[in-house]
C-alpha cells in the first residue's frame, strides 16, 4: 500500500502488513490490521489517530514493548532491513535502543525518580558500548545532552528527574533515544503533555534529528502539529490505516472520510457547523 516491496530493505523502519492481536479473557481482539508503513532515513512520518486507533500499539511493536498478552500474528516489522518482530527476546534487546529509539509521552515518568539524570544516561551508554572507560562514557553523556541545546550541561546531568521542567525532561528523553545513533526514532505522543511554547522547542529538536539522517515516526493525535513537522502523514482508525500520503496532500486534499472528519474537527473560529459522523464512533 505504501512503499514498493523492493524498497523495504532500505527503509529505516518498515511495517509490512502487520497484524497485532490481544488475547483477553473474553477472547481475541485485533488491535492492528494490515498495517503497512515505511519510514525512510531522514524522513518524518506522522502516525495520526485517536486513542484506541492502534497507533501506539504499532509503535510499541516496533520496539518490542508489547504487553505479554499482545502478539504480532501477521506480517513483519523490519529495521534497516532486519526483521524485528518474532525475534527472540535477546535480539529484541539488542535492537531496542540501538537501532530504534523511543521518546515517551511523560518524560519525567520515563526516568527513574531516585537516580540522577547523568547516571541514567551513563547507564544507557554503557549498556550499548560495554568497552568504554568511565571518562569516555561521561564525555559521551555530556556530548549528547549538550546536543539537545542545553546551556548548563552539568546542571542537567546532576539533577534528579523531578527537578527538570517538562520541556527539559523531554529533551533528556530524546537524548537517551539517540545516544546510539539509531536508524529511526519513534516519538509516542511526546509533546502531548507540554504547553505550546515548550512543544515548539521539542519539535525543533526532533526536526534536527531528521536533518541528521535519522528517520522519525511521529505518533500523535494532533493533526495540525503533525503538519508542522512531517513529510508524510498516515492516518489510523480502529486499527487500520485509512490514508497515507505527503503532508500537503493529506491536509489539503484528504481522500478518506475519516481524515476529513479529523480536519473538520479542528476548531475554526469561522465555522460552527461541525457534527461528528456516526460512522466513526468508537466502541470501547
Amino acid at each position, binding site marked *: 500500500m505504501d512503499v514498493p516491496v523492493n524498497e523495504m530493505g532500505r527503509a529505516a523502519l518498515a511495517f509490512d502488513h502487520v497484524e497485532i492481536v490481544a488475547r483477553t479473557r473474553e477472547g481475541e481482539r485485533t488491535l492492528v490490521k494490515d498495517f503497512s508503513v515505511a519510514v525512510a532515513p531522514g524522513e518524518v512520518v506522522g502516525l495520526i489517530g485517536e486513542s484506541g486507533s492502534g497507533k501506539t500499539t504499532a509503535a510499541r511493536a516496533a*520496539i518490542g*514493548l508489547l504487553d505479554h498478552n499482545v502478539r504480532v500474528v501477521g506480517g513483519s516489522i523490519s529495521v534497516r532491513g532486519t526483521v524485528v518482530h518474532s525475534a527472540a527476546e535477546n535480539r529484541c*534487546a*539488542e535492537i*531496542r*535502543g*540501538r537501532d530504534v*529509539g*523511543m521518546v*515517551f509521552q*511523560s518524560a519525567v*515518568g*520515563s*526516568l*527513574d*525518580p*531516585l*537516580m540522577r539524570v547523568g547516571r541514567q544516561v551513563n*547507564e*544507557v551508554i554503557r*549498556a*550499548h558500548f560495554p568497552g568504554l572507560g568511565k571518562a569516555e562514557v561521561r564525555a559521551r553523556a555530556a556530548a549528547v545532552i549538550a546536543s539537545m541545546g542545553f546551556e548548563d550541561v552539568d546542571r542537567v546531568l546532576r539533577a*534528579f528527574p*523531578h*527537578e527538570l521542567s517538562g520541556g527539559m525532561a523531554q529533551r533528556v*528523553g530524546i537524548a*537517551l*533515544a539517540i545516544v*546510539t545513533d539509531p536508524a529511526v526514532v519513534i516519538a509516542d505522543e511526546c509533546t502531548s503533555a507540554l504547553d505550546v511554547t515548550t512543544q515548539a522547542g521539542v519539535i525543533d529538536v526532533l526536526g534536527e534529528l531528521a536533518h541528521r539522517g535519522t528517520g522519525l515516526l511521529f505518533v500523535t493525535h494532533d493533526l495540525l502539529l503533525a503538519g508542522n513537522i512531517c513529510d508524510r502523514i498516515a492516518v489510523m482508525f480502529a486499527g487500520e490505516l485509512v490514508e497515507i500520503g505527503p503532508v500537503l496532500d493529506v491536509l489539503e486534499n484528504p481522500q478518506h472520510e475519516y481524515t476529513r472528519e479529523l480536519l473538520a474537527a479542528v476548531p475554526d473560529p469561522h465555522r460552527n457547523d461541525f457534527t461528528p459522523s456516526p460512522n466513526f464512533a468508537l466502541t470501547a
Partner: protein
Amino acid sequence: MSRAAAHIGRALATLWLAVTAAFLLTRVSGDPAVRIAGELATDDILDGIRHQLGTDRPLIVQYFDYLWHLIRFDLGKSLTYHTDNLELIGSRLPASLALAVGAMAVAIVVGVPLGVISAARVGSLIDRVVSVISLIGQSVPLFWVGLMAIMFLAVRWGMLPAGGNESLTAYILPTLTLATIPLAQITRLTRSSMGEALSGGFISAGLARGLSRTRMIWNHALRHTALPVLTVIALQAGMLLSGSVTVEVVYSWPGMGRLIASAVELRDFTLVQGLVVVAALVFVVANLAVDLLYPVIDPRLRRSRS
C-alpha cells in the same frame, strides 16, 4: 535542615506524650497499692504502701516529680529487686536488642529477595507459595510457634538448646521465631512496591532504551523498595522489642521482655513503668532515624536547592 529539626521536635513531643501515658496508665486505672497488697489488706497497710510509692500525693505533684526524675535518667527503684530500675533494664537491654536486630536482619535478608522474585513472577507457583506462607506467618501466635519449635527441635530431637542465650546456637530458634512477622510483612511490602515499580513508566522506558530486565529490577526497582522496607522497620522496631515479650518468655531469654513478664507477676509497677518508658524511647528513636533517612533515599523528599 529545618525539616530534620521538625522531625526531632515531633519525636520529642511524642516521647513526652508516651512518658505521660506511661505515668497515667499505671496510676489512674486503679490503685497500685491494692494490686500489690491484695484486696483484703487493711487501710494501714495500704496507706503505708501508698506512702512508700508516693501515690498519696496529689497527681500533679507525682507527675512533675516523675518528669524531674526522668530527665535525670532516674527510673526509680524496683519494688522487688530493690535496685535502680535503670540499671536493671540496662542489663537486659543488650539481649533484647541482639534478638531484635537479628530477627530484623533475617527478615530483610530473606524477605526482600522473596518479595522481588514474587513480584517479578506474578501469579507463578513461587509467588503463590510465598503468599500463602506469608499469610500463615502473620496468623500464628509467636509464642505457640516457639513452643512447638522447642517441643520438636529441642526436646524431641535435641538439635538445639531449649532456652537461654548461652551459646550461639541458642540464638537460632528465638531469632527465627521472632523474625516470622517482620518477614511476612517485608515480603508482602517488597512484593507490592516492586510490583508498582515494575509497572511504572520508567521500567518499560528503560527496556525500550536497551537496558536488560535484570538490570531494571536489581539496579532500579529495588531501590524503590527501600522506602517501604524502611517504613516496616520503623513500625516493627518497637514491636520487635515488645512483641518479643512472649518470645523471650517462651525461650527464657534474659531480655527486657522477660523482665516485664516477671515484673507483672511480681506486681512491680515501678519496674513496669520504667520498662514502658524505655521501650517508648527505643520506638521513638527508631522512628526518628527512619524519618531522617527517608530524604536520603528518596530525592523527591529533599528540600530543593534554590
